C-alpha cells in the first residue's frame, strides 16, 4: 500500500538531523555489522501502571478509515482489531475471524469469533463486521483504504457469525489486507451513533483491542487504558495505561528519551542512534521492515525516458555511501523495490530465485557514463525535487545529483517547502517539471504486489505514468493467482520487468527502530507495529 504523503515525510523526518557519524561503522553487507535486528526484547517482569510513548505527530483522527499513517496506526493497532492479525514476524493469523475460507475464487468467507466484547461491553456480531467493512466502499466516507476494496462486489452477513465478501475478480491480496486497517471491526452501533464525529478527539472509538480509548487532549496527548474484558489472554495488556505524547521536533523527542520524560517511541531519528545506543536512559533496538527508499522517476518524456539512462543513473549513485552517510550505516543497498521480507509468503526456493535473477546495478560511474552516452542525452537537464527536511534527504539528493553529473546530465536541484513536497505525492500540478523525487515506501502486507500494484498503468502512485503491458499483465495474473507458487512466479515476472525498466530507482532499505526507556520492556520490534497490539506486551523491566 502506498503510504500517505505524511507518512512519506514522516519516514524521512524520522531519520532527521542525520550526521555522518564516525563510529557508526558500515552496513552489514560490507562485513562489520553496525546493527543487529532483534525480534523480541526481554519479556516484561510484570505489570506496570503506566508508560509514556512519543509520536512524531498528532493523528488527525483515529477512525480506521483515515488511519493510513504512522501516528494513528500505531495507536489504533492497540485499540481496534481486524479480522486477521499481522504478526511481528510478518505472518498473518486469525484474530476476530477464527477462520476463513475461499470456496470460490471470488468469495472469501469469514467465521466471526464468538464471545468478543467491545469496549462498551456489547458483544461482537457479524453485523458489526459488515457495517465496518462496508464503510470502505462508501464514497461519502471517502476513506483512505479504497484500493484494497477495488475488486469487491459486495459484503454480506451469511450466517449468525459469518460474513462473506464477494469479489468482481479473484484477488489474492484482499484477504491479506484483512490483517491491516482495511479489516478493522468497529461496533456498528457506535458507527451509527457517532457518524461524522467517529474517531475524533471528543468521541474516540469503541473496538475490541487490549486497550480502550480513554481521552485525547488535542495537540497534547492521547491516553489508552487497559481493557479488562479482552478476549485473548496471550495479549492482555501489561500496562494499566499508555499515554501517547505528540512531539514533532526530533530533538525534542530525543531529549525527552534522555530525560526519561518519555519511556519510548518508534522511528528514532537516525542522527540520535549513537546517543541512544548506549545510554543509561534505555536501549535502542532495530527490527524487520518493509520500507525502501526510492528515487521516483516522475518524467518519462525527458532524458530519463530512455531505460538505459535510468539504469545508468542507478549505477552511478553511490548507494553504499548514502547508507553510510545518510542513515548512520543502519541500512542496506536495495536490490529491488521491495524488501526480502515481502517474499515471506512465497515458497522459499521461488523467493531465492527471484532475488538471484534480479538485474544488479553495482556502483560503476564509468560503465554508467558509457551506457548513458549510447542514449545520447549528454548535457540535458534533470530536475531533482527536494525539501530541507533533514540532512538525510539532503545527502541523498546530493548523491543523486552527483550521479546525474557523472553520466553527463545537468542536474538542477529544486528545493521546495515541506508542505509543497507533500503535495508532490498527491497533486499532478505540483509535480510539473520535476524529473526525480525521493520517497520512503512501506508495504502494509507481506506481499511484493502491494508495491508493484501501484506501478500498474493508471495507478495513482505511478507518478511518471510508466506503462508496460507485460508488467500490467504479470501483476494482474499475480493478483488473480491464489496458488503461492503461481502467485510468486507471476510477481517475480513483474518484478523482473520493473527492475529492468526502473520506473523508480531503489536506493536502500532500513530497519524499524524503537527506543525503550529503562523502566519498560517486552515489545517485538517490527513494522507490524502499525497493525499489531504491540503496546500490550510492554510491561515493567525486572
Amino acid at each position, binding site marked *: 500500500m*502506498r503510504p*500517505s*504523503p505524511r507518512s512519506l515525510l514522516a519516514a524521512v523526518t524520522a531519520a532527521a538531523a542525520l550526521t555522518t557519524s564516525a563510529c557508526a561503522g558500515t552496513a552489514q553487507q560490507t562485513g562489520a555489522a553496525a546493527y543487529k535486528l532483534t525480534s523480541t526484547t526481554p519479556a516484561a517482569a510484570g505489570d506496570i501502571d503506566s508508560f509514556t510513548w512519543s509520536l512524531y505527530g*498528532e493523528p*488527525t*483522527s483515529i*477512525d480506521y478509515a*483515515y488511519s*493510513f499513517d504512522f501516528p494513528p496506526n500505531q495507536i489504533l493497532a492497540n485499540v481496534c482489531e481486524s479480522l486477521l492479525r499481522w504478526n511481528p514476524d510478518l505472518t498473518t493469523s486469525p484474530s476476530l475471524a477464527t477462520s476463513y475460507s475461499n470456496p470460490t475464487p471470488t468469495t472469501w468467507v469469514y467465521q466471526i469469533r464468538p464471545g468478543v466484547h467491545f469496549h462498551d461491553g456489547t458483544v461482537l456480531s457479524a453485523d458489526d463486521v459488515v457495517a465496518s467493512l462496508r464503510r470502505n466502499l462508501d*464514497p*461519502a466516507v*471517502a476513506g*483512505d483504504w*479504497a*484500493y484494497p476494496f477495488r475488486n469487491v462486489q459486495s459484503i454480506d452477513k451469511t450466517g449468525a457469525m459469518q460474513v462473506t465478501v464477494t469479489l468482481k475478480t479473484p484477488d489474492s491480496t484482499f484477504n491479506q489486507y484483512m490483517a491491516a486497517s482495511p479489516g478493522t471491526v468497529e461496533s456498528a452501533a457506535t458507527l451509527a451513533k457517532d457518524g*461524522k*464525529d*467517529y*474517531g*475524533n*478527539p*471528543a468521541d474516540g472509538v469503541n473496538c475490541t483491542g487490549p486497550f480502550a480509548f480513554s481521552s485525547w*487532549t*488535542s*495537540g*497534547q*496527548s492521547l491516553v489508552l487504558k487497559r481493557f479488562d474484558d479482552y478476549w485473548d489472554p496471550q495479549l492482555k495488556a501489561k500496562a494499566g495505561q499508555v499515554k501517547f*505524547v*505528540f*512531539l*514533532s*521536533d526530533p*530533538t*525534542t523527542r530525543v*531529549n*525527552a528519551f*534522555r*530525560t526519561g*520524560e*518519555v519511556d519510548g517511541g518508534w522511528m528514532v531519528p537516525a542522527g540520535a542512534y549513537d546517543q541512544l545506543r548506549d545510554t543509561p536512559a534505555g536501549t535502542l533496538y532495530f527490527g524487520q521492515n518493509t520500507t525502501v527508499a526510492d528515487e521516483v522517476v516522475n518524467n518519462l518524456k525527458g532524458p530519463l525516458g530512455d531505460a538505459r539512462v535510468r539504469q545508468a543513473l542507478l549505477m552511478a549513485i553511490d548507494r553504499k555511501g548514502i547508507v553510510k552517510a545518510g542513515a548512520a550505516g543502519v541500512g542496506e543497498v536495495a536490490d529491488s523495490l521491495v524488501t526480502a521480507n515481502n517474499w515471506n509468503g512465497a515458497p522459499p526456493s521461488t523467493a531465492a530465485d527471484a532475488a538471484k535473477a534480479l538485474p544488479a546495478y553495482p556502483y560503476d560511474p564509468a560503465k554508467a557514463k558509457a551506457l548513458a552516452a549510447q542514449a545520447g542525452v549528454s548535457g540535458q537537464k534533470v530536475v531533482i525535487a527536494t525539501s530541507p527536511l533533514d540532512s538525510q534527504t539532503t545527502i541523498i539528493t546530493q548523491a543523486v545529483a552527483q550521479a546525474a553529473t557523472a553520466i553527463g546530465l545537468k542536474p538542477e536541484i529544486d528545493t521546495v517547502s*515541506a*508542505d509543497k513536497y*507533500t*503535495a508532490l*505525492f*498527491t*497533486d499532478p*500540478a*505540483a509535480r510539473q517539471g520535476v524529473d526525480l523525487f525521493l520517497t520512503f515506501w512501506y508495504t502494509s502486507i507481506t506481499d511484493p504486489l502491494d508495491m508493484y500494484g501501484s506501478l500498474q498503468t493508471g*495507478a*495513482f*502512485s505511478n507518478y511518471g505514468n510508466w506503462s508496460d503491458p507485460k508488467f500490467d499483465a504479470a501483476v494482474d495474473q499475480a493478483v488473480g493467482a491464489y496458488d503461492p507458487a503461481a502467485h510468486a512466479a507471476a510477481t517475480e515476472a513483474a518484478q523482473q520487468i520493473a527492475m529492468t525498466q526502473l520506473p523508480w530507482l531503489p536506493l536502500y532499505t532500513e530497519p524499524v527502530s524503537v527506543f525503550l526507556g529503562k523502566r519498560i520492556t517486552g515489545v517485538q520490534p517490527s513494522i507490524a507495529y502499525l497493525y499489531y497490539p504491540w503496546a500490550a506486551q510492554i510491561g515493567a523491566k525486572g
Partner: protein
Amino acid sequence: MSASTLSRSALSRTAIAAARRLLGMAVTLLVTSFLVFSSLYLAPGDPASFLVRGRSPGPQELAAIRQQYGFDDPFPLRYWHWLDGVLHGDFGRSYLFHQSVGEVLWSRLPATLLLIGVSALMIAVVGVGAGIVGALRRGTRTGSAVLLLVTVGAAVPSFVAAIVLRSVLGVNLGWFPTIGNGTGVLDRLHHVVLPAIALSVTFMALVTRVTSAAMLDEMRREHVEVALSRGLPRRTVIRRHVLRNALGPIVTVGGLLVSGMLVSTAIVETAFGMSGIGSLLIQSVDELDFQVVQAIVLLVVAAFVVVNALVDLVHPLIDPRVRAAGGAR
C-alpha cells in the same frame, strides 16, 4: 451654558467616539475576513484532493466530497455561508480533525494564552525594569551592563534561546520539564517558564530599549530640569513626571508586541512540545485545513484590533496631556 449641558455634550462626544471606534473595528474585521477567506481559496492546492489524501477517487466519490463540503457553491455564497457561521460562533468543521473548529481552537487556546500571559508579565517586569535602571544609571557600569544585555537579547532568535534553555536547564540540569503543557496550576507554570523566556527574550530587549529612550527623552525636558533645580526630591520627579510621561510609548510598543506574539509562538511551542495556537497554525497551513487557518488568522487580527483599542483607551488615563487634547478636539 450650564454645567450639566457641558457634561452631556462631553458624554455624547465620548459616545460618538466610542461608536465610531467600534464601527471601525467591525469594518476592519469584516474586510479582514473577506481577505482571509478569498486569499485561502486563491492559494494553490485543492481541498478536495487533500481530503482524499493521495488516492485517485472516482468521479462519484469526488462529487460526494465536493457536495459535502460545498466546494461547488459560487464564491460569494461560500463566503456568505462562512461569515454567517462565524457571526453565530460557528467557524466550520476542521477537515483535518473531523471536529468543529471551535472545539479544536478551544483545546489549544489556553496553553497559548498562558504562554503569552507569562511572557507579557516578563516583558513588563524585566523589560520595563531594566529600561528604567538603564536610563537612571546611564554611563555607569550597571547602565553599560543593561546596554550589553539589550544588544545581546535583541539578537537572540527565539529558536536559539529555546535550544539553549532546553538543553542547559532542561536536559542537563533537569530543573524544568522539556516537553508538554503540564497539568494543574503549578505544573503548568513550571512547564511554561522556559518557553516564555525563549519567546520573550527579544521582546524584553526591545521594551528595555524603548523604556530607556523614553525616560531619557523625558529627563531632558525643561519641566523636569526645573523641578529638579527647585529641589524637588529626585525620586518624586522621576516617578511623577518622567516615568508617567514615558509610559505612553512603552504601552504602545508593549501592546503591539504582545498581540504580535500570537503568531510567533509556533517555534517555541514546537521546541517544547507544547500544543497551542502557533503550532496549530503551522500544521493547518501545511495540511490545507482552511477552516482552521481562517479562524486563527481572524483571531490574530481581532487580538491586534482589541489590543490597539485598549492601548488607546489606556493612554488618556496615564497621560493627562492626551486626555486634555482629546477633550479639546
